[in-house]
């Protein structure tokens, strides 16, 4: 059994630590590229949201490298993501690939089945060992997330433009080669050391932009055209509302115990939307209001075309914009979105909020 999984931001770092620690063979799909999306959109249905198309591309590129089992999570919410596993299986079957799917979910609340599936995927029955590796993987993802965040913060303030970009490129190349948790942590440590050498312009007070929206488009840098790096390059401090590490600890640790870390966010969302309607609409609204309250200069919403919960959020956002008088932009992404048009809009938005800040002074 050689497993693979779809790309989503830093998930591959965690998957690597988890599976290599347990001794399972794993194929990491090549980073998502135009070719991945092309394969995906050729074979998947027309109106499905763009994450599925990229997933299909990822699978096929991995299958060509020898994978025969796909790991994916599931859900039971009103969002389409719950049916990804079923539809992806059908698509691969029609393409003639004989691949097994292991979907991590508790079908109709059956937790025993979920544990059996995890045991099957990890090829061990020792739950203690699995749990230990999951904790390690989770830690690796959170550390990698933090590194990315710090990189962006420095990139917004660096004196010599492009020095962090070089560092990031080296780090991304290295991270695919490292094996096991220890090497990864060493690499991250070294990168931090390198980062301290970068000169920072202390007089520059960067603009602050909050990124909200659907989780996949926020986290996967390929589909959002590396929006964070582009903004940081324009000298803007970016804060992204969802990180995969935080999301996992929220859903694996807090929610099952009936707790939540998002009390503040839910409170902020309350005047506009007071319940979960599937996907991340609630979080989108909550973070939008939260960013407005904490003095951000602008907010950008990202969504894949046709995303049902985000459409509801999109129609609520103008009210938030009016209430707090903070500029807000919505970017819809799909396989036809062009890089240049996208960059133009980002630059215009940043220019606009910059002028707004000057006027306020």
């Amino acid at each position, binding site marked *: 059994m050689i497993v693979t999984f779809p790309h989503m931001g830093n998930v591959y770092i965690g998957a690597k630590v988890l599976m290599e620690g347990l001794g399972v063979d794993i194929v990491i799909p090549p980073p998502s590229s135009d070719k991945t999306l092309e394969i995906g959109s050729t074979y998947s249905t027309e109106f499905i949201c763009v994450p599925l198309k990229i997933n299909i591309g990822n699978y096929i590129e991995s299958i060509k490298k020898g994978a025969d089992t796909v790991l994916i999570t599931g859900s039971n919410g009103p969002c389409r993501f719950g049916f990804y596993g079923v539809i992806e299986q059908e698509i691969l079957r029609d393409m003639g690939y004989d691949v097994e799917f292991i979907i991590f979910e508790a079908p109709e609340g059956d937790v025993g089945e979920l544990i059996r599936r995890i045991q099957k995927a990890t090829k061990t029955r020792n739950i203690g060992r699995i749990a230990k590796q999951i904790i390690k993987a989770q830690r690796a993802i959170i550390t990698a997330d933090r590194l990315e965040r710090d990189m962006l913060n420095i990139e917004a303030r660096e004196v010599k433009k492009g020095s962090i970009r070089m560092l990031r490129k080296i780090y991304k190349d290295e991270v695919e080669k490292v094996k096991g948790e220890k090497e990864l942590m060493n690499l991250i440590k070294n990168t931090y050391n390198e980062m301290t050498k970068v000169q920072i312009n202390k007089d520059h007070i960067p603009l602050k932009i909050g990124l909200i929206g659907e989780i996949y488009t926020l986290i996967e840098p390929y589909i959002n055209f590396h929006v964070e790096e582009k903004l940081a390059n324009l000298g803007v401090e970016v804060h992204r509302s969802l990180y995969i590490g935080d999301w996992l600890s929220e859903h694996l640790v807090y929610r099952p115990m009936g707790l939540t870390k998002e009390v503040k966010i839910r409170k902020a969302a309350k005047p506009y939307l007071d319940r979960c309607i599937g996907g991340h609409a609630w979080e989108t609204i909550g973070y939008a209001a939260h960013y407005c309250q904490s003095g951000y200069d602008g907010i950008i919403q990202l969504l894949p075309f046709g995303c049902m*919960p985000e459409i509801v959020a999109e129609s609520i956002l103008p009210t938030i914009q009016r209430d707090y008088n903070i500029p807000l932009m919505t970017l819809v992404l799909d396989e036809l979105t062009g890089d240049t048009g996208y960059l133009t809009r980002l630059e215009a938005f940043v220019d606009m909020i910059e002028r707004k800040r000057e006027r306020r002074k």
Partner: protein
Amino acid sequence: MKIGIPRGLLYYYYFPLWKTFYENLGFKIILSPETNKSILDLGVKTCVDEACLPVKVFHGHVEYLKDKVDFLFIPRHTSLSYGEFTCPKLCGLPEMIINSITKLPKVIKPDFNLHGKNINIDKTIKEMIEPLNINIKQARLAFFNGLEQIRIHKEKVFKEFHFKYHSKRLLVLSHPYTLYDSFINMNLLKKLENMGYLVITIDNIEDIKINYYAGKLPKKMFWTFGRQLIGSGLYGIAEKEKIGIDGIIYLSSFACGLDSIIADYIERQIRRRNNIPFIQLIIDEHTGEAGLNTRIEAFTEMMERRKLYDSNFSSYGKCIYRS
């Protein structure tokens, strides 16, 4: 006092309940007219661009009604049966309306939620009468009268259908809000009837069949309409001779999230078995009637010819010999 009810989305299923409820309590109901061009235009103007056609039309109905009534009734249908949801846009419908249309009268937004094990109908009833100053006991009685009306309505639809007889039958799969709104679907049902077809919809198929075939999915379908559509679709494919249908038409609106999954699943099943003609018609506010007509005519002609003399003809790549 006048309560406005927009003629859109789940009006086509639950209007008997709403009407009986408010009329029993002594209110006057103002219903928006059937969808027309000006209502559609109002909807397109007020709604966000990415939404689907029925939601845009609903916005148009609200825009039409807002100056003519004292209260506006916009239900939130979180869940229509146990363990299932509806489309997220229906779950967040009141928020969509309130934030995209200005100068609304007071909005009544009850939450119909049958998802969990403990259903709280009382809460829904309280939300239905919240701004109206009505005794809760009276309201409960009116609500159960309304439920009775829904049952009668459903039985009527089911019975009316089973008295009809046509030699040619056709399965049309669609959400009720595109199927029964004759402006959105450009009178598709009437057109098919004029061509001599008896149209079977998800409402004419027994629940037992729907649930049996929907249960064959590898995963429980968590949308109510999704379960009905996929159940009827698979039933149509598997027991084609028994129902006597010649083909399946899937009518969906552009960028419908549920249909992207369901129509694709059904289409893949049909392609594998290759036993029944299938067409997916996609509509949005730009669809021209002529194009739709052409496609329907071509499809029906193809079905007829297949029955007469095309049945032994090989499709591409298949063996001509037939035992």
